[in-house]
């Protein structure tokens, strides 16, 4: 057997699996999206129909808020952990990255334990102020949930980027008389830009498409994945659900592709 035919043989299982169970189904999804009463206009409805547009705006705003907050938190913690060596540091890093592979449903449950009806925050606020604070089953709960699973991923990327920073640049800036804030603003943060873009894009795309957390917290939180789910299962509105999924998939893919072209390779993971 020649090398060429051996290589083709190596690719055959991949080709069969990916065509049968990914390419064809995705094509079917796009076709079904245009198969409703309104045809291709179903895709336009994502932007034109006030209810769908409202949900889309909600989802984008939530994802953007999660991304910015996560970046801010992860930068402070990541810089700190990479710049200082102290006893217990390894344990702290392990704690911060431990929820990395929690599925969305488990993250939802973590938020229920933290801010739900029998949650810790409710308990503490009841004792301190006499009024129970329950955040879990709302947009705020979902925000906390998405923070919970974005923080470990973004912290890892930022710590890796900080490690690769060239310390001589900072020394040069300091030698030229820059204060600590100026060094942060003009040297460190710009150097971390590719890491911000890469990890921010992943956080954003994951927050747009994640379903398990919203599903656990409540079925009436108004975000795109929940809308797709209810359209499909409760209203049996299959064409709309397909059109919305195609739209969601395109947005998530476009964000990651854009980030990759700006910042190099990115690694996405599950939500």
């Amino acid at each position, binding site marked *: *057997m020649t*090398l060429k035919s*051996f290589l*083709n*043989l*190596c*690719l055959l*299982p*991949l080709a069969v*699996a*990916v065509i049968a*169970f*990914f390419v064809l*189904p*995705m094509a*079917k999804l796009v076709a*079904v999206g245009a198969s409703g009463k309104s045809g291709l206009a179903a895709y336009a409805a994502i932007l034109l129909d006030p209810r769908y547009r409202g949900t889309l705006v909600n989802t984008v705003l939530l994802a953007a808020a999660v991304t910015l907050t996560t970046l801010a*938190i992860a930068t*402070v*913690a990541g810089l*700190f952990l990479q710049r200082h060596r102290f006893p217990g540091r390894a344990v*702290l890093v392990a*704690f*911060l990255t*431990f929820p990395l*592979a929690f*599925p969305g*449903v488990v993250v*939802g*449950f*973590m*938020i*229920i*334990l*933290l801010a739900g009806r*029998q949650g*810790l925050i409710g308990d503490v606020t009841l004792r301190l102020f006499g009024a129970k604070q329950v955040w879990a089953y709302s947009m705020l709960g979902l925000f906390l949930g998405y923070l*919970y699973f974005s*923080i470990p991923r973004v912290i890892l990327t930022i710590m890796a980027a900080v490690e690769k920073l060239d310390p001589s640049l900072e020394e040069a800036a300091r030698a030229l008389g820059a204060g600590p804030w100026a060094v942060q603003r003009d040297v460190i943060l710009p150097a971390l830009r590719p890491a911000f873009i890469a990890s921010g894009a992943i956080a954003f*795309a994951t927050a747009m*498409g*994640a*379903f*398990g957390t919203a*599903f656990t917290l409540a079925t009436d939180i108004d975000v795109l994945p929940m809308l*797709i*789910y209810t359209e*499909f299962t409760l209203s049996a509105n299959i064409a709309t659900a*397909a059109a919305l*999924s195609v739209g*969601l998939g395109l947005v*998530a893919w476009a964000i*990651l592709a854009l980030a990759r072209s700006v910042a*190099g*390779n990115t*690694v*996405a*993971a*599950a*939500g």
Partner: protein
Amino acid sequence: MRRLMFTAQLAFTLLVAAFLIVPALLSMLAGVTANYFRGIRSGLTLQWVAQVWELYADTIMRSFMIALATLAATLLIGVPAAYALYVRGGRLARTVEEIVTLPLAIPGLALALALLLTYGGFSDFRRSWLFILVGHVIFTLPFMVRSVIAVFAAIDVRTLDEGAASLGASPWRRFRDVIVPNARPGILAGALMVVTLSLGEFNLTWMLHTPLTKTLPVGLADSYASMRLEVASAYTLVFFVMIIPLLVAMQVFAGWGAPRPAR
């Protein structure tokens, strides 16, 4: 001033760590507390864990079975494909890699809907656990392919391959005796990732499962919605016990097969 900055940053980082770790500890504790509402004073018990086993043992077994089958499939499909894609190179290989990686960017819900719309009519397939397996394989395959390609890029496998070829080894023998042993770190890292992701996969599985093919995360969602907090916590505890050794192993091997820009 320096001291103050250090303390402030440390306090902030500890707060973030607490946000992540406290709920996990609470859930582990709740899973072995007799009555969570009354707190730890009510005593420790394993009755909830036993109840979880009674109610959900089948989901746990099924999740293990699907994870192992997913691993077998991604190994059989992914490792030869990674080799062929790396050795061939060029635009076609890059396009194929791009398509294989797409399921990472596309939300699980969309992929699940696509599978349902295409194969939902084949009712025997739809009802069996193989339907879930297909979803898991498509979703985890990119991790295996990428992690193996990353190792090929790092160890310059092309030179090794050419060396073996110049000694007269056939393509199959080179693949078996040279390529696969050298790709071991990437295969291991990919395998850990695949098993961890498959065990925890919910977004796809929730859409693809039937009442007879529930997996662990599907059962978890069930218990969060309908069981008392202690049972839900005990179930989560069981999940942690399964997943944490995998996470630790991944940290240990992180240096080996960590995804790097390939080429």
